[in-house]
């Protein structure tokens, strides 16, 4: 039993963590590309690459670790020299290709293959890029790299001069370690802590040796510089440095106060640089907070849980609720005066109720992660196809069941690809048509009538009715008479296997295997897809996912002995009928006139053939439901209450019927059928 629930394994965890980091990185890069520049997210990118490098090295995945290291180098450099102007798009491309490389390797790892990917080309490209930006850098090109140290040195000396006490000397030491000792930053840290016994004030460069392993390289080549004030004699200091572990060479000198005063004027000029940096870096966090608010949703921390465990938990809670009802509403307790017991029972009911709510909500996942993956696809495709495309995401917080998320990602990707490849026209065509040059793909999710809708909309060329008809004729999908087909019927042909109106096959689409697979996949989770288009204006693909397993707000109503659940979202109002509102037409159809509008009456007990005492329209409650502009008034016996329910599918043995969307468990353990308002209105 225990082993069944524990599933930690080395590579598994590595794969999981790294994938999460990569996803985050991708989002970050794409996000910053949109907001103009990588500056704000530089630290985050650096940190992620650093983590990946570390864990890959630990798992001995040399190629991943190496390539991550090279990226880390680039970002380290950029972070240290913020004013450097970089070719953002080139950098973005590089990082994204690294992300792809690592993802590919990890995919191999997941399927149990060995890692064979050769990253040397990629690493070389990145190193070349780094060399390039180093030479491009206007500040660095003019000044030797050491200028940083000079500046630090001056400011340190200056600070010491102001605060310094009599009898203290200011010293500067540069320490080099053995070439192959490794972990120079940690060695430097050891030196610092030991030097603490001699020195009063201490400053050193590079500064972030503890957090930043990349400083090891810097120390290796440039040495580790320390400035300190001390009262100790020079001999004692020389003795100290001589016994440092792995020491290759060192230099130590005392700095004269007057020495520092000399370059005062040039230093003022020097200071301009750092001053700008300081104000910039002060400004950046402020910008970054704005960004981070946006990406807050993505930054929430998550753990992943085996879905089977969730299902078990949910069933157990269901049973707990039933058991609770059986105890607290036990008939044997009736007529007993048990104040304390009922108080405790109320507390128990409250807690089980909350527990049930939480468990129900756990399975729900926002679509955000799936949607954001599409950003990358749109970007890459737009670049390769030389189009300008913007992806607009709406309603990404819409929550759907975990299972649905997993099954919706692939179809969605196909649709997005189609929209960019087939839909959006090249820039020159758009210009000729007088459309905005940048094409727009809109990805929207929303809850409607208890269903979840996912809509992919583009403002591209739209579908050509004649072309589709012609193709359909070629494939023999049409009867002779096709003039009577509505646009929707015609467009539905593109969902048929082997149907592509695009003449040439591209890297992304055009083989005509896409849309029928999409339709099939969506049908597999019980959804439906519809196509709508206007030539020259754009195409809209709407996916309707049924509420299977989704949580909905439901109103429970009583009809005879049965309890039904009506999705609250479909209910407009409930009322008791007054005589003057009822109209009966010659065919004996009943209608209700409310506020000048006429609504048909649907007696649920008749529709479902249930025996009930409340057959009189005036006795029961009328429930006005509306969906997509169509309305009806349902006659029910009584309203019982409103609650969140988890929609379960009806057992497969019972064939799907119109008017019933599924079923749900009520608090007392009984089963209630959920009405499908859409289906009810149509019949």
């Amino acid at each position: 039993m225990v082993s069944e629930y524990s599933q930690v394994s080395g590579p598994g965890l590595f794969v999981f963590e790294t994938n999460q980091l990569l996803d985050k990185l991708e989002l970050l890069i794409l996000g910053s590309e949109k907001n103009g520049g990588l500056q704000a997210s530089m630290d985050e990118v650096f940190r992620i690459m650093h983590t990946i490098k570390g864990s890959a090295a630990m798992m001995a995945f040399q190629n991943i670790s190496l390539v991550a290291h090279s990226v880390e180098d680039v970002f380290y450099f950029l972070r240290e020299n913020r004013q450097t102007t970089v070719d953002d798009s080139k950098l973005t491309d590089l990082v994204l290709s690294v992300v792809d490389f690592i993802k590919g390797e990890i995919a191999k790892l997941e399927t149990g293959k060995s890692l064979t990917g050769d990253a040397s080309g990629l690493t070389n490209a990145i190193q070349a890029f780094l060399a390039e930006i180093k030479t491009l850098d206007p500040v660095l090109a003019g000044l030797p790299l050491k200028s940083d140290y000079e500046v630090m040195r001056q400011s340190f000396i200056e600070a010491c001069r102001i605060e310094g006490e009599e009898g203290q000397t200011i010293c500067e030491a540069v320490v080099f370690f053995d070439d192959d000792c490794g972990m120079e930053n940690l060695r430097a840290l050891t030196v610092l802590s030991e030097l603490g016994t001699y020195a009063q004030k201490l400053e050193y460069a590079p500064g972030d040796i503890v957090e930043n392993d990349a400083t090891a390289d810097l120390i290796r080549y440039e040495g580790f510089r320390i400035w300190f004030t001390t009262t100790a004699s020079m001999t004692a200091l020389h003795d100290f440095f001589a016994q440092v572990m792995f020491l290759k060479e060192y230099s130590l000198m005392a700095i004269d106060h007057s020495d520092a005063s000399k370059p005062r004027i040039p230093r003022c000029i020097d200071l301009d640089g750092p001053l700008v940096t300081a104000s910039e870096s002060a400004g950046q966090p402020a910008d970054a907070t704005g960004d981070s608010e946006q990406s807050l949703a993505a930054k929430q921390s998550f753990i992943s849980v085996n879905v089977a465990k969730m299902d078990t938990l949910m069933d157990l809670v269901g049973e707990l609720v039933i058991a609770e009802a059986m105890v607290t509403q036990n008939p044997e307790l009736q007529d007993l005066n048990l104040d304390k017991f009922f108080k405790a029972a109320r507390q128990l009911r409250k807690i089980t109720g909350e527990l049930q709510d939480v468990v129900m909500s756990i399975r729900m996942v926002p679509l955000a992660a799936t949607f954001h993956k599409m950003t990358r696809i749109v970007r890459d495709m737009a670049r390769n196809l030389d189009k300008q495309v913007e992806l607009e995401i709406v309603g990404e917080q819409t929550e759907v069941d975990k299972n649905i998320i997993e099954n919706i990602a692939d179809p969605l990707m196909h649709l997005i690809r189609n929209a960019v490849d087939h839909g959006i026209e090249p820039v020159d065509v758009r210009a000729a048509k007088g459309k905005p040059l940048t094409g727009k793909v809109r990805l929207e999710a929303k809850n409607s009538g208890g269903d979840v809708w996912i809509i992919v909309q583009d403002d591209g060329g739209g579908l050509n009715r004649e072309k589709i008809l012609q193709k359909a004729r070629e494939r023999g999908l049409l009867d002779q008479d096709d003039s009577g087909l509505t646009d929707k019927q015609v467009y539905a042909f593109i969902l048929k296997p082997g149907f592509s109106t695009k003449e040439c096959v591209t890297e992304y689409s055009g083989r005509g295997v896409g849309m029928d697979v999409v339709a099939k996949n969506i049908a597999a989770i019980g959804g439906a897809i519809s196509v709508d288009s206007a030539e020259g204006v754009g195409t809209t693909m709407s996916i309707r996912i049924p509420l299977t397993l989704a949580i909905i707000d439901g109103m429970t109503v009583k009809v005879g002995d049965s309890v039904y659940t009506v999705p609250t979202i479909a209910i407009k109002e409930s009322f008791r009928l007054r005589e003057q509102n009822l109209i009966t037409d010659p065919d004996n159809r009943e209608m209700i006139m409310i506020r000048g509008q006429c609504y048909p009456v649907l007696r649920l007990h008749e529709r479902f053939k249930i025996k009930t005492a409340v057959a009189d329209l005036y006795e029961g409650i009328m429930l006005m439901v509306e969906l997509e502009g169509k309305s009806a008034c349902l006659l029910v016996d009584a309203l019982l209450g409103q609650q969140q329910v988890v929609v379960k599918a009806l057992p497969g043995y019972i064939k799907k019927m119109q008017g019933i969307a599924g079923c749900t468990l009520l608090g007392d353990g009984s089963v209630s059928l959920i009405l499908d308002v859409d289906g009810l209105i149509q019949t």
Partner: protein
Amino acid sequence: MSELDQNQLEAEEDTQKGKFLTFALGSEVYGIEIKYVTEIIGMQTITEVPDLPEYVKGIINLRGKIIPVLDVRLRFKKTAREYNDRTCIIVVDIKEVAVGLIVDTVAEVLNIPEQDIVLPPQVSNHDYQRYISAIGKVGQDVKLILDCNKLLNDEEAERLEIVR
């Protein structure tokens, strides 16, 4: 250890073989192969589902799992009978489909050796004859052994579906 498990498994399979859960509908006694039976539960509140054949009484909640229940009496076109304390639901699992069968009473688990099982007579005017896969002889009594697959997969309902 694993050998022991294996032995136990085999033993279990052996003990299941030739065993039948018998239940009564009126005066007739039927048997179901025990390997199909998951559990026997008392009568539950059944939620009616509209537009279903009469013998499908509705659905019940079996520990969070929604399963349909059939009234075997109605399935065999016998007259309906009021449910009482002795009415039971036998939960069977046939090809991964869980279904509850409402029966008058559950009798016992019987061991019917292979040589006592014979094919049903070919001539019969009973409507439910096609649901019987064999007849088991136990002493002087006769037990009708049900073909569970046919009980569920209902050609009749499918035919109705087409007509509709």
